[in-house]
Structure formats: C-alpha cells, structure tokens
C-alpha cells in the first residue's frame, strides 16, 4: 500500500485519538474519571437499540451537511453558509409538508425537492457574487446565515402560524417517520432520512468522481486559470458548485423538518448542524465515504454525550471540546504527517 494513501487514512484517525487523549486529560484535571466518561459516551451512543436509533438519527443531517461543505471544498469554495441553507431548506420542506394534500409518493419527494431548491437558491447569491464580482464567499455566506435565521423566524410567525412560535406538524404524506424503525429502536426518533442521506453520499461520489461535469468542477477548484485556458466556463462552474452544495444543505434541513421534528419552530440561534458539517467534512477527508464514517462519529459523540452527566457526572460540553480538538489536530495534520514520515523512515 502506498504511503501517502495510508497517511490519508491515518491522519484523521490519529487526530481523533489525540482529541480523545486531550479530552481525557481535561477530564482528569477537572476531577472526573475518563474511563467512566468514555464508557458512558459509548453506552449512550450504542448501548441499546434506542441509543443506536438516536445516534443514526443525529448522523443523518450530519452526513448531508458534511457533504455540502465537502462538495464546496472539493471545488475550491468554502461554504460557511451551510447553516443558513439548512434553515431555509427546513422551512421549505415544512411549508410544502403542511400546505399540500397529495399522495405520499408525490408529496414526500416534493417536500425534499423544495428543501433542495431553497438551499440551492440561498447558495446561488454567494455563488453569483463570487463568480462575477469576486466577492469572497466566506463573508457572504456568513451574512446569508443571519438573514436566513431572521427571515425564517418571521415567516414562521406570520405565514406558518398565527404569530406563534411553531408551525403545524407536516402531513403524514410528507413525513419521514417510520413505524418499523420506531418499533425496532424502542421508540427512538430515527426515521427514513438515513436512506436519503446515504443516497446523497452516493450522488456526490458519482457526480464528482465519475462525470465530466464533476471533473470540471474539481478542475476549476484546483486551478481557475488552467481551467479557463482549457476552455471551461469558470463562472458557471463556481455558481453550479455553490448551488449543488446548497442543495445538499437544504436536504439536511428537510431531514429535521420532515423527520426528526416534523415541524419548524422559531430559533433564537443557529442549529449548529451546518457548522458541525465543516468538522464532518474535514475528518471525512472531503470524500463521500469518509463523510459517512465521520458523520457517524459525530452523531455518536453528540448523542453519547447526553449520557455522560447522569452516569459519569461529566458535562456534555466536554464533547464539544473533543470535537474542537479533533478539528484542530486535523488542521495541524502537517505535524502529524511529519511525525509519521519520521516514524516510517526510522522503521526502514
């Protein structure tokens, strides 16, 4: 096996391990037992079918938000706006879910499509500004997040409810709820969304790796000037990349709106799923299969953390510290690579 391939796999694994080790140091320093802490975490994530169901439910939007961030990354864009695109996707899905009365085969896909469209539309603005005016997408997407938050809150109050804080629940025909999954996971909130998320990962892999358009998108991300010279339309590709990324984010929102919650309520702040998607994409090496694994890791960390206060006394916030440390170590992967190459040289 070639060494760089091996390292590509080892770096995230080592980053996770290092994050866990520093996390246990934090636990020891603050007077907790790390073994008890991590046992509670693992039990809380995979301990019985209920916990497994919850973990998978949490993994579902993470996969899609991770794909959204990764798709942009692979095409040379940094989409910090996944959070906002997710919120408008959530709103669009619920809107379609409550206001139409259609057979399920039409209604559910329509609601998901609406979410994808809303997310895509929200990403279109930074895409156009980037492509035509070279305005940095990071700053525009950050602004778009806040606009999404306030606008959806206003729409929930005035359109989806009568000055209330919550929409009606989506109709059964637009719901991702599953009696079967409910039964086998002891009434967890797990829903069919996981299938859509996995399909999403396959679509992203196929699109980027197997199609000419995907090659073009990656080429533009890699070197705009060379792509231009090769006759590609750089502007269209930038916009398209942003729009596809936004569509993934919108569908992530549909998972919350049609699956986990089944409604939308006004928010005082961000959901965090879009921002965690950055971490998911990084750990997953920006590749579709890697993202499935890293989304599962983050889902397990988040759900497992809920068990830590009651059985080990450790505050759930510890997991956020661990996640942050993992990102930090992935970011600093140069030093990990350096150590690995020293070790490999020493072994030869």
């Amino acid at each position, binding site marked *: 096996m070639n060494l760089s391939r091996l390292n590509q796999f080892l770096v995230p694994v080592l980053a996770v391990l290092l994050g866990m080790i520093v996390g246990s140091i934090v636990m020891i320093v603050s007077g907790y037992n790390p073994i008890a802490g991590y046992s509670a975490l693992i039990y809380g994530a995979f301990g019985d079918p209920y916990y497994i169901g919850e973990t998978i439910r949490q993994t579902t939007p993470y996969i899609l938000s991770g794909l959204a961030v990764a798709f942009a990354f692979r095409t040379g864009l940094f989409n910090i706006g996944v959070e906002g695109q997710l919120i408008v996707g959530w709103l669009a899905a619920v809107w379609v879910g409550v206001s139409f009365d259609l057979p399920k085969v039409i209604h559910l896909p329509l609601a998901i499509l609406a979410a994808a469209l809303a997310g895509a539309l929200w990403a279109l603005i930074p895409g156009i500004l980037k492509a035509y005016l070279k305005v940095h997408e990071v700053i525009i997407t950050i*602004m778009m997040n806040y606009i999404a938050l306030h606008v959806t809150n206003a729409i929930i109050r005035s359109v989806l409810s009568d000055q209330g804080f919550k929409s009606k629940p989506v109709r059964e025909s637009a719901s991702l709820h599953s009696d079967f999954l409910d039964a086998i996971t002891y009434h967890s909130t797990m829903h069919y969304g996981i299938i859509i998320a996995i399909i999403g990962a396959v679509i992203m892999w196929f699109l980027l790796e197997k199609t000419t358009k995907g090659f073009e998108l990656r080429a533009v991300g890699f070197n705009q000037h060379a792509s231009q010279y090769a006759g590609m339309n750089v502007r269209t590709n930038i916009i398209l990349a942003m729009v596809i990324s936004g569509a993934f984010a919108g569908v992530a929102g549909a998972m919350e709106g049609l699956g986990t919650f089944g409604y939308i309520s006004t928010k005082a702040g961000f959901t965090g799923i879009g921002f965690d998607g950055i971490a998911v994409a990084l750990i997953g090496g920006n590749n579709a299969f890697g993202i499935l694994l890293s989304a599962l890791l983050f889902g397990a960390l988040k759900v497992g953390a809920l068990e830590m206060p009651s059985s080990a006394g450790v505050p759930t916030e510890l997991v956020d*510290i661990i996640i942050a440390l993992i990102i930090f170590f992935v970011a*600093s992967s140069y030093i990990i690579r350096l150590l690995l190459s020293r070790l490999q040289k020493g072994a030869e």
Partner: protein
Amino acid sequence: MSIYEILQIIIPSAIFFAAPLIFTALGGVFSERSGVVNIGLEGLMTIGAFVSIVFNLTFADRFGAFTPWLALLAAVIAGAIFSLLHAVASITFRADQVVSGVAINFLALGLTLFLVKQMYGKGQTDQIQVGFDKIDVPVLSHIPIIGPLFFSNAYIPSYLAIILAFVAWYVIYKTPFGLRLRAVGEHPMAADTMGINVAKMRYIAVMISGALGGLGGGVYATIISRDFSHATISGHGFMALAAMIFGKWHPIGAMGAALFFGFAQSLSIVGQTIPFLKNVPTVYLLIAPYVLTILALAGFIGRAEAPKAIGTPYIKGKR
C-alpha cells in the same frame, strides 16, 4: 418626535453597540495584515467575554470600582494566550488557517461552557454587579448639538475603541513595525530576504488579534450582556470580521464599518420607538446590517483587496 431627538436615541446606541466590534475588527486587521486569516475572532471574543465576567464576579469585592478595568485586562491576556493556539497551528504547523480558525471558535465555546458548568453548576453565570458608569465627556459634552449626540451618556471603552483605531492606523502605516507587518503579509519571501523574521512577526500579529478580540469580547460582556452564557457572543466575531473586510483591511475603514454595523444593530433595537420605523416589520431591521454588507461588498465600495500572502503558510527556502 423631531429628527434631532431620533438621532439622540440612535447615535449613542450605535456607538454603544459598535465598540466591541471595533476592538475585534482591529485585531483582525493586525492578524490578516500579517498574512494570517483569522476566522477565530468569534472564539477569541468568547474567551474574552468569559474571562472578564468570571474575573468580575470573583474579584468585585476586592477591587471595587477597578474591577471592570482589571477584568478587561484579564480578557486581553487570556485572548492573547488563547490565540497562540491559532498561531502555532497556522504558522508553525502550517495548518489551513480557515480551518484552524473554525477550530478556535469551537474550542472557545466548548471550553467556556464546560468551565461555566464546572464553576457555577449551571449553564450561565450570574449578572455582574460592578460595570462601567456612563459618563459625560468634560468640555466636549457641552458643545451644542453634537455634544449631546456624541459625548454624553456614553461609556469610556467606546471612546477607547475609536482612539485605538487611530493608534492602529499610526502603528500599521507610520512605524517600522507596521511596515514589517505589512511586508510579511504581502510578500513574506522578500521580507525574509531583508532580514525580517516572518514567523515572529506573524506570531506577534496573531497575539495582538487575540488580545484585541479578547478585549472586544470583554467589553461586550461587561457593558452589553453583563453575564456569560452560550449565547453571549453569537455572531459578533463574524460581524467584526465582516467589518474588517468591509473596511478593506484598514483600521479606520474597519472602525467605520463597525460603527455602521453598530448603527444598524441599534436601529433594529430602538426602531420600535421611532415613529416612521414603527410600522416596518422588525425582520427588515434585523437583517439590515447583513443585507447592507452584501450590497456594499457587491457594488458600492468595489473590490476589497486582501493582503497578497493571506492564507498561505510561509515555508523558508521554498519558492
């Protein structure tokens, strides 16, 4: 209600909301001028807010009226130390600077909430009892018309923020230190050839951004929120980042943009009391700063030129 009365509500409150953004945006200017992207401003503000509140709650009895000042000092030191993580990752370990900044944001929020739970056994701290007093600036507040608008009923840190913007301008454009700072951000190899220690300059710049980000967070917490919870710093670091870009990486520009954001923020809060704004749905006022920023970036102020070497680690001997 006359225009003057309206201005009398809006302008002081704009300055009030702008101060934390000014400090933090100036921090961003230093870091990015040296070639290091700092998305972590939000996290640095969070650390500053947390430290200043904890310091204030812990030592208010001992230091009395000096407490808020010492709390800000603590926030400055904590911010500078915390920013070292970003410096080590992005300068020494050659990390992707945006990613490292994101990690800083996550880490700051996780760490401070963890510590709040540890120290107070609940998700948020108590309200601080000792804050800054509102003052009327001597002499200036008596100037007719502009005196009451700009110089009365305000907090000293707000004025410090504005003064600091001019100091930062002087430092960056008129001193040898500032020349070196800009050199390592524009063309690190040329700077290196001239005997400037690129890594050292960048470390200093990132630590200045940490200190100022911490100060911004401390000022926000002490004057505006007066306690610390997960929602204390929610987007203010990103607003400061936007102000820095809006201001074209220039201290005075950044200050102007921060004042403008403060103005928009104050409109969304005091808008309800102003007659012709009363019938405008709040949502328009809430999104105004963000929409205006996008419009401005897209058309009115033209292209913002970032320092050339921004985002790229400097590797000695590599062309």
